[in-house]
């Protein structure tokens, strides 16, 4: 039989706007998140956190707290059982932050755990934590890279050594100096916090001395299992991590943080299951953030607006130990046809925890700089923002010379412009009024890479016509449960109700976590590979079965579509997988397979050099395609010239993201991405106090995220796109794409409304008013 026959295989439920299969559990309150798993004997853990950002603990007085009723133990650095290893001692630590608090008396950031109380009720643990008296010898902390005490340094490598801190292509400075149009600007991005609705939580259950189950709010159960195995010195299989439902993550639950191991150690110490949920305040100092950062972009173009050079530098804050920073440069490198490019990262250590990937890490802030500058140049040259983007359209990826695996950006521009009514836009800024409000229209490009990933899945088809499909993935709310049910249904020719898709457990086959937009494409490919394994087995049974219409056929001549096996040359001749299975007398049949996403898939199916034969560009290097999704955002704002308030009044997003597995959930995800970006553009900012390096607005009253009344109708469409190179079903992830370019589209619309360029996010009313006081 044919394997890896993808692509244009008929679908029945894939792509359909199926209601979420986990929806009934979520709308009835039956869905249990990690802190809601009921385990008999569970006691409550509460963290006490440091009030200073730098210094050492001179004493911890727990005597009053210990006298409270119901207190089981109070753990501090003095009596916490030590893990087998700390992150620093792990050869290749898999998480963002390599520092583990409560190992000694040092304090390195505000809000760092200094004690963990375990009590029989949450109230008693909380009360006791408040009664612990910690005295510190405080030192003056460094609050950010702006701090006069801070020293910017060249990290050489960023993101745990995965990326270079310098990238140069061509001769960017010289090209900039000689450019007809030279534009230079600095963009500021505030500290942002992911702020998922569900606070991070750990329920640690020691099933025996060397057997641990952890119910964790995890975007990646395999990562949590591996990190725990490293720290505890236990074999991975002795640690089970379970996440059946997770209340959002946006990146912050895809890394390993101190509270998880502290809870596990506490559970060991008290020999009882311990449940610990971070408070909302602790969510601001417990699970990372998007770092405060500044980008300077020099953009050189020809007199007709064609990019000749991009010189990009980024300065940002990082922690005392790690060199994490978002790689903003990569989208500048690839988004347009620009022959010369460079990016440089500079970091400064401050007394903050390590920042971490937050939805569209790098692409979101990077595109803000690129797309704002391009808008400025368009305005300077009297070009329509769409026109300047078309003039710089990249027919191949200039960052590496590779052809695109697929790209539908022109269609996205055209369709978005049509839906939005872009042709009615007033080109001259500050001219469009609605009553006393200034109206503006802006747009920006979106793109996100298809990262390499792989995973496994298991498919068990039962003779009664139902199936259980398993992969250790997670569903952040992104629809994994639902779309994988659809993929499985079509793979086996069953109705979705006949599929039970299980995820979120390290006992299931290893799958990637939800992050980097890899889950949908990878898990779908894994399921298809596992289904192929089932097909193979059933075809072999059928061709050996006298009662089968396929008796004595060669397996290579048999094709399987929608659960039906048939002769490729005579499609009438065939039967369903289930029919053959029933005759065999076997109650069920099981298959497993490994699916790849991105470059690995292409290499496996098209060979190292299986690049597009039509691509003859000189820059083309050997080997494969560049894989990205693309899209375009169109935004209308109303700006109140007296109050400085900005309201989004219309939004259109059109995207090309390969095969859309479920139109309903995919549309919701793109709407959510746009709104997440609107938050970053207009309101999200965590303030770190310059003197004390503490957050001053660490809760949901102080950290403003969009509410319902902030958001207008949002139109989202996908353009049809087929991509054979990226994975079995041609799926491109969409978790991040919808957010990329959003802040720039908002800023560009504000520029169109007011004639003022706001380069400092979030664009709050004070900044708008200040800008309006300046001449346009």
């Amino acid at each position, binding site marked *: 039989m044919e394997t890896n026959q993808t692509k244009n295989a008929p679908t029945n439920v894939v792509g359909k706007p199926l209601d979420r299969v986990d929806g009934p559990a*979520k*709308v*009835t309150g039956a869905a249990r998140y990690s802190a*809601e798993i009921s385990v008999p004997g569970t006691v409550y853990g509460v963290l006490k956190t440091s009030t200073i950002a730098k210094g050492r603990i001179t004493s911890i007085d727990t005597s009053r707290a210990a006298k409270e009723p119901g207190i089981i133990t109070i753990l501090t650095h003095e009596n916490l059982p030590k893990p087998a290893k700390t992150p620093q001692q792990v050869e290749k630590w898999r998480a963002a932050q390599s520092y583990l608090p409560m190992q000694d008396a040092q304090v390195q950031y505000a809000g760092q755990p200094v004690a963990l109380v375990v009590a029989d009720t949450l*109230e008693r643990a909380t009360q006791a934590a408040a009664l612990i008296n910690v005295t510190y010898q405080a030192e003056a902390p460094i609050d950010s890279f702006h701090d006069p005490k801070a020293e910017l340094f060249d990290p050489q490598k960023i993101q745990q050594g995965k990326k270079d801190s310098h990238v140069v292509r061509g001769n960017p400075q010289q090209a900039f100096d000689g450019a007809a149009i030279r534009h230079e600007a600095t963009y500021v991005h505030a500290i942002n916090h992911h702020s998922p609705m569900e606070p991070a939580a750990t329920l640690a259950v020691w099933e025996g001395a060397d057997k641990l189950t952890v119910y964790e709010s995890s975007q990646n159960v395999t990562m949590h299992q591996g990190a725990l195995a490293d720290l505890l010195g236990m074999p991975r299989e002795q640690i089970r991590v379970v996440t059946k439902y997770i209340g959002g993550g946006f990146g912050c639950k895809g890394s390993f943080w101190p509270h998880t191991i502290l809870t596990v150690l506490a559970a060991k110490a008290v020999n009882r299951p311990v449940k610990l949920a971070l408070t909302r305040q602790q969510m601001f100092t417990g699970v990372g953030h998007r770092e405060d950062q500044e980008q300077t972009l020099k953009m050189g173009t020809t007199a007709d607006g064609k990019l000749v050079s991009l010189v990009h530098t980024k300065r940002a804050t990082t922690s005392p130990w790690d060199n994490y920073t978002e790689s903003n440069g990569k989208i500048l490198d690839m988004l347009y046809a620009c022959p010369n490019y460079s990016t440089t990262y500079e970091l400064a250590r401050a007394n903050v925890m390590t920042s971490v990937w937050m939805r569209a890490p790098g692409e979101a802030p990077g595109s803000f700089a690129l797309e704002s500058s391009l808008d400025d140049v368009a305005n300077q040259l009297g070009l329509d923002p769409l026109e300047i983007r078309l003039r710089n359209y990249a027919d191949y990826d200039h960052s590496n010379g590779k052809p695109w695996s697929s790209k539908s950006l022109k269609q996205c521009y055209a369709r978005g412009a049509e839906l939005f009514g872009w042709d009615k836009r007033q080109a001259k800024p500050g001219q469009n009024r609605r009553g006393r409000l200034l109206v503006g229209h802006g747009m920006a490009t979106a793109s996100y890479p298809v990262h390499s990933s792989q995973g496994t899945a298991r498919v068990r088809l039962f003779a009664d016509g139902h199936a259980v499909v398993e992969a250790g993935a997670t569903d952040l709310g992104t629809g994994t449960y639902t779309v994988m049910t659809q993929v499985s249904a079509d793979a086996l020719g069953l109705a979705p109700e006949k599929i039970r898709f299980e995820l979120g457990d390290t006992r299931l086959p290893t799958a990637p976590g939800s992050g980097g937009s890899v889950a949908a494409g990878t898990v779908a490919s894994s399921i298809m590979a596992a289904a192929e394994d089932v097909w193979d087995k059933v075809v072999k049974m059928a061709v050996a079965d006298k009662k089968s219409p396929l008796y004595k056929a060669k397996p290579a001549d048999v094709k399987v579509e929608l659960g039906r096996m048939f002769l490729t040359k005579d499609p009438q001749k065939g039967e369903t997988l289930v029919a053959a299975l029933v005759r065999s007398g076997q109650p069920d049949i099981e298959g497993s397979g490994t699916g790849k996403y991105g470059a690995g898939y292409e290499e496996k199916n098209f060979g190292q050099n299986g690049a597009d034969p039509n691509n003859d560009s000189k820059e083309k290097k050997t080997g494969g395609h560049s894989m990205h999704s693309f899209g375009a955002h169109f935004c209308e704002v109303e700006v109140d010239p007296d109050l400085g308030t900005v309201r989004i009044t219309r939004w259109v997003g059109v995207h090309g993201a390969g095969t859309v597995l479920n139109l309903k959930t995919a549309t919701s995800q793109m709407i959510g991405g746009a*709104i997440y970006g609107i938050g970053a553009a207009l309101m999200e900012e965590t303030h770190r106090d310059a003197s004390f390096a503490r957050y001053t607005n660490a809760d949901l009253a102080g950290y403003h*995220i969009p509410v319902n009344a902030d958001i207008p109708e949002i139109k989202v469409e996908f353009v049809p796109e087929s991509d054979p190179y990226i994975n079995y079903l041609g799926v491109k992830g969409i978790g991040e794409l919808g957010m990329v370019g959003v802040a720039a589209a908002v800023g560009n619309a504000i520029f169109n409304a007011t004639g003022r360029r706001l380069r400092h996010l979030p664009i709050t009313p004070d900044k708008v008013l200040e800008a309006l006081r300046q001449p346009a």
Partner: protein
Amino acid sequence: MTEPITPDTPAGGPGKPANDGSRRTFMKQAGGILGLALAPPFLSQAERLTALSRKVEGVSALSLKVNGTVRTIQAEPRVTLLDALREYLDLTGSKKGCDHGQCGACTVLVDGRRVNSCLTLAVMTQGKEITTIEGLAKGEELHPMQAAFLKHDGFQCGYCTPGQIMSGVACVQEGHAGSEAEVREWMSGNLCRCSAYPNITAAILEAAKSS
């Protein structure tokens, strides 16, 4: 002294207006230390004495009528309604997003009004009708608001969803679901970080139409 407060002995005393869930009745009910600590700025001397006369200290029996069933728990008076539901009654549908009344994930109905259960002490709600997300559906049949959320995909991760739905039910009952703009305004106390807002609004408008 521990004197359990029961629904038939309202803290206001016989002949007083029914408990309206206001700050004052709460003071009287919770009484004791909390009453003393908070009383001076708000209450008259006579009321302070009333507060002093009723104490709930330490663990005591609390009877809560949740989704039509009266259940008794042993809990301290400082236990919030949200924690009583989640940690004592194992009704985990009501969510803890912030514990400070900032996000709305914990929204339940108390005598038909939407409240943030994280800002409500369980002891205050004795004798009242508490409705949580678990009490909306009739068996397998979803409440129209639940069905509308499912149909319009009014959620992604689902963590704010019970609060959104309870708030949505109340929003319609209050007569605040007359237009898109009105729904957006009256649903802005319920945060959704996945940002399903347009779909939530569509779901509530549809449920309002059918009710």
